[in-house]
């Protein structure tokens, strides 16, 4: 089983080139999803998001997710990064990247991966507005 690149960090995810992390000479396809802080949530202007995690469990759940993804799709490489702490508007909070021989595997793996990560991994996001803040609940 190839090893997967997993990182939970307080640093900027922009330091990492997600496509390069999953580069493989045998791959014809690379799929990347990046989640960023957007400027509005529910019609309110957002100043920033603040993420916290149950770090050891989040790492374990992301590793399990990698195993689950690889059971479903034949991939070359797989990388998942999540940022914690304050994430200003326009900066990335999460990315998932996968490479595969053909395109379908990488695309479906990334789609499934971000859905499962949002549903299962113990990470929480607080939305900070000009007039207060609220803990978000993933429901999309």
């Amino acid at each position, binding site marked *: 089983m190839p090893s997967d690149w997993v990182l939970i960090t307080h640093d900027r995810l922009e330091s990492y080139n997600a496509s390069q992390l999953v580069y493989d000479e045998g791959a014809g396809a690379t799929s990347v999803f990046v*989640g960023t802080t957007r400027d509005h949530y529910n019609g309110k202007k957002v100043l920033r998001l603040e*993420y916290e995690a149950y770090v050891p469990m989040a790492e374990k759940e992301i590793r399990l997710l990698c195993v689950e993804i690889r059971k479903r799709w034949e991939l070359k490489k797989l990388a998942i990064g999540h940022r914690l702490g304050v994430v200003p508007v326009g900066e990335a909070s999460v990315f998932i990247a996968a490479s595969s021989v053909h395109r379908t595997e990488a695309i479906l793996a990334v789609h499934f991966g971000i859905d499962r990560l949002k549903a299962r*991994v*113990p*990470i*929480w996001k607080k939305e900070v507005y000009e007039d207060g803040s609220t*803990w978000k*609940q*993933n429901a999309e």
Partner: protein
Amino acid sequence: GIPGMQIQVLFFASSREIAGKDREWLELEEGTSIEAFVQLLFTRYPRLAALRDSMMVSVNLEYASPQSQEALRHGDEVAIIPPVSGG
């Protein structure tokens, strides 16, 4: 007295704000179930009960139902997991 056991509970996100702390050690009777432990936390921090229908718990990094009848063991790390919102 009844022999006791030490359980560490971790609070995150809204549960952390309600408890006013991110972790504490509690002494429980041997054989206390996950459900009984969660009820005890609702008594200790009444506003936590607002999470009753949406929260999960974990025991030693494994998800568990807050209604589980499984017994906790000395040294277990239990986390209160409000609805997650990573990504």
